[in-house]
């Protein structure tokens, strides 16, 4: 039976983890490579890096981090943030990323998703959709961390990226992100019911119960969380044991 995945996400800015884990065993709380290794040793099913570096000049930094991480972590590694060109993808994959997550560039031009999945295979193309609720059962795609409204319906967009070869959707609720009040389960349910590719739930996790909701109520194939793991409130193992105790199948 296919297991539900738990994916810790590390936000990286200029080569440093923005919200670090407070584990005592950490030598350098800001070192993404060390943190990724801790997650991987702790049973993370995949690792996600989100590069929030503002400038383009610093792209080499994330590539270097990916290169180092990939030599130590032998679980899938997804990298997102600033992926705009085929060359960006090539660089990340050559450095050792297994998947890249495309956000703004996919919204601007869905043909980019098509081109990328044709060239590299759907298995490594994740499209990150940031959605915000605009009315009852209606969500719109936003870019630039929720600042820019696009007028594009989230469901239609999700279907469109699937048609264009995306292998997975990383769905973030901009209303919930950072609130620790749980995923937007209605949004998740709507997207998972209307697409045929796996959806990774993101945005809003504050408790282990939220992970349960994302999978069981929202229909997500994987759950992504940042802060509950970063601050050491829970370890990956805690999350897995909790889900397992509630009959959600995970890789233990």
């Amino acid at each position, binding site marked *: 039976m296919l297991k539900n995945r738990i994916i810790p996400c590390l936000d990286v800015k200029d080569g440093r983890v923005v919200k670090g884990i407070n584990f005592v065993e950490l030598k350098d709380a800001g070192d993404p490579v060390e943190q990724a290794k801790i997650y*991987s040793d702790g049973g993370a099913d995949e690792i996600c890096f989100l590069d929030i570096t503002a400038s383009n000049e610093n792209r080499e930094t994330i590539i270097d981090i990916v290169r180092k991480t990939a030599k130590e972590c032998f679980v899938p590694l997804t990298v997102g943030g600033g992926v705009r060109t085929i060359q960006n993808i090539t660089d990340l994959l050559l450095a050792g990323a297994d998947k890249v997550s495309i956000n703004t560039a996919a919204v601007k031009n869905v043909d980019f998703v098509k081109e990328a999945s044709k060239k590299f295979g759907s298995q490594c193309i994740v499209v990150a959709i940031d959605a915000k609720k605009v009315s009852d059962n209606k969500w719109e795609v936003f870019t630039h961390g929720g600042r820019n409204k696009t007028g594009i319906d989230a469901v239609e967009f999700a279907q469109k990226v699937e048609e264009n070869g995306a292998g997975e959707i990383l769905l973030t609720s901009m209303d919930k992100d950072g609130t620790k009040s749980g995923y937007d389960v209605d949004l998740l349910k709507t997207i998972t019911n209307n697409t045929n590719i*796996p959806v990774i739930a993101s945005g809003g996790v504050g408790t282990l119960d939220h992970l349960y909701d994302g999978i069981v109520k929202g229909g997500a194939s994987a759950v992504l969380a940042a802060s509950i793991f970063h601050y050491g409130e829970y370890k990956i193992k805690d999350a897995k044991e909790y889900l397992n105790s509630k009959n959600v199948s995970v890789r233990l």
Partner: protein
Amino acid sequence: MNVTIVDYQSGNISSVINSFTEVAKGKANLEVTSDIKKIKFSDKIILPGQGSFKSCVDSLNQIKGLVDTLQEFAMTNKKPLLGICVGLQMFADIGYEEAETKGLGWISGKVSKIDNQKGKFKLPHIGWNEIEIQKESKIFKDIKNKSHMYFVHSYEFIPEDKSVISAITTYSSKIVCSVERDNLFGTQFHPEKSDKIGLKVIENFLKL
């Protein structure tokens, strides 16, 4: 011992290189190449594969003499070869991804799309799934039945001779996840991405 990872521009093989490098440390010389001479003199070969069946077969065929060299290595000289993901799928006679494409024909069978029961199951089949070992396999030495491996694929290999199947996994149906016939080994899952247990599979192959 010389081990070659065949680099035929089949997409992203960095993870395969990283994991084999990790396991081979001090045990084997690892080459990543499409140089036919080097492949000929290898003791073992890893044939990775990402993207579609068609794109992988096309890429193999683009390197002059590569298919013949692999054929001689695996079928005539019977030296150990491990195919990973589409690398395994290409053992088949024929594949149906993108367009009907002839495979290497080493193990009779076909590669077709996973029946996802009219959308009841999401495709690709992505994530960790349990292997159900069907027969003793050298690459599963010291690996427990029901161990988790990492999968990402939408097509499956269906061999005619079921005795080659060393493990299956259960998704929308029973899917072949590894084969072994004499010197030929193949995994549908990605040992290079399957954590410590995956590295163990690689170690077993290198120890053959």
